[in-house]
């Protein structure tokens, strides 16, 4: 007998929390290693500030407390889901992030959908086949997976938007403004997904059970759609964590290029301005999201592959 489901779930949850705690601790430590004074970040470098003003700000931000106290405070806040107060923007971190969450989510979801669509089409069209179209498509995937997305973005912007006016350029107004950034973000992800998907489909098509299926009179499409796709879902799920991280990192660059608001840009400016509460919050949130994605994927494995039910995750 395997341990009961609740116990297993509890253990997984505990290790997930451990990871989140570790992430919070590391980011706290790392950000306190940074040379310089966070008060400078709060005030900005443009105007020198009098020592009195600095002392006031320091006290206001709780930076005069000893480090361990600051650490405990930040953990205690975390437990109550209070993400703290942004140094630089002087407002609750939760508000700052809440504003930026939607544009980023919108971009990420659109890019993900686009990537899956592109990859699925490319892989299904070429799986189990040979010849020129396949060579061309796999070549394109290879390049797509290798090319830096910020460069794709800049070039696409110049030609597709500025020169030929096919797409709107900057900002986040309307669904059509989403096309170019989403495409830019989707290209490298689609490149990798398509390769994995096709390889998986190919492998599945080579398995003995496919011979059985075909012997029953099922055609190529039937085999691909009814049997092979589901097999390919397992390695694709394995990639979910990578895709998630790729989307998150990708948004940082794509948002910069396309002047879109979002978590990525908030993050970059928070990191450079040493806005510790914001960075901590992004780190903790992304670690939590990552862990959630992995937990979900673990559960999905069991849905997709009945062999894994009642056993530990692969």
């Amino acid at each position, binding site marked *: 007998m395997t341990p009961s489901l609740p116990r297993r779930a509890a253990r997984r949850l505990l290790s997930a929390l451990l*990871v989140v705690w570790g992430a919070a601790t590391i980011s706290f430590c790392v950000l306190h290693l940074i040379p310089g004074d966070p008060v400078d970040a709060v005030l900005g470098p443009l105007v020198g500030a009098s020592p009195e003003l600095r002392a006031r700000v320091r006290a206001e931000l709780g930076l005069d407390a000893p480090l361990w106290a600051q650490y405990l405070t930040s953990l205690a806040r975390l437990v109550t889901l209070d993400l703290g107060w942004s140094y630089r923007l002087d407002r609750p971190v939760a508000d700052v992030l809440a504003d930026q969450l939607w544009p980023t989510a919108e971009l990420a979801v659109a890019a993900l959908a686009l990537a899956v669509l592109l990859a699925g089409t490319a892989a299904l069209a070429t799986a189990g086949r040979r010849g020129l179209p396949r060579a061309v498509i796999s070549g394109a995937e290879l390049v797509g997976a290798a090319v830096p997305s910020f460069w794709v973005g800049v070039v696409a912007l*110049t030609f597709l938007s500025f020169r030929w006016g096919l797409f709107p350029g900057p900002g986040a107004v309307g669904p059509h403004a989403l096309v170019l950034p989403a495409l830019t973000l989707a290209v490298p992800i689609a490149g990798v997904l398509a*390769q*994995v998907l096709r*390889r998986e489909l190919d492998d599945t098509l080579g398995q003995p059970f496919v011979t059985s299926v075909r012997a029953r009179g099922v055609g190529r499409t039937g085999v691909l759609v009814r049997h092979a796709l589901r097999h390919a879902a397992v390695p694709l799920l394995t990639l979910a964590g990578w895709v998630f991280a790729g989307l998150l990192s990708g948004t940082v660059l794509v948002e910069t290029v396309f002047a879109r608001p979002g978590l990525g840009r908030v993050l970059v400016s928070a990191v450079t301005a040493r806005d510790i509460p914001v960075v901590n919050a992004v780190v903790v949130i992304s670690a939590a999201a990552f862990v959630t994605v992995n937990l979900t994927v673990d559960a999905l494995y069991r849905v997709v592959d009945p062999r894994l039910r009642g056993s530990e995750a692969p």
Partner: protein
Amino acid sequence: MTTLGVPEAALWAATPRWRVPLAPVLAGAVLLLFAAVAARPEWFAVHSPTASDLGAALRPPGPEHPFGTDQLGRDVFARVAHGAWPSLSIGVGATALGVLLGTAAGSVSAFGGRLLDRVMMRAVDVGLAFPELLLALIVLTVLGPGPVNVLVAIGLAAAPGYARLVRSRMLVVRESAYVQAAVVMGIPRPLIVLRHVLPNTLGPVSVLATISAGTAIVVSAGLSFLGFGPQPPAAEWGLMLSEGRDHLQRAWWIAVFPGAAVTTVVVAVTVVGRWLKARLDGGPQ
């Protein structure tokens, strides 16, 4: 851009089956060329990468300046050529650092006993919960911008992935029939680790690292693009891309050529890496 190390599963799965090794040969030649350019840029470019000639600013590609000139009248070709060294060395160095740290951590985990393994793997889990770019950004905030720091940042960010890879591979090798055969022969443990476990772990890991070096180059370019890499007036591809952005409408060549260089190198590295891996996989059959 894939800003992350592609997980192992993806790499193993994504091997194209080249019938004629034309592509890897071609890619290998490209890499050799870039390596030569990185080592001796002055053999390829007559102009200095930093000397500006304000009178010749923003010239389009032509016989005198094959890749044109930038806003300071610097020769873009010379800058691309001289940018090969920082760009390539950051990518390769970061990967090497990641492999080194990952191997150290992975070995400790695989051979250091249960407790150490647990602690190490939880730490690796935490490391893996950060997107690589985020981790690199945080490291860079501590270290400050600069090429060496970018190298360290990417290396550190990649290390948890390698640690896990090395550990799992070592466990597989450790339990393998040939290691058991060596035990049966009475070969002392340290010798077994040295002769069998390490070489058979590092082989596949280094092939994967080859492929990841491409990723590292892209990530380093991304960090330069965000302003964390080498600083002006250095010639580095990511930085050049970032500097050329504002001039795209009038002088596309400033950003397009370094971008094309990054893309070419990364594609070539990937092709060679995958070919190596295909050979490694295809070996025992």
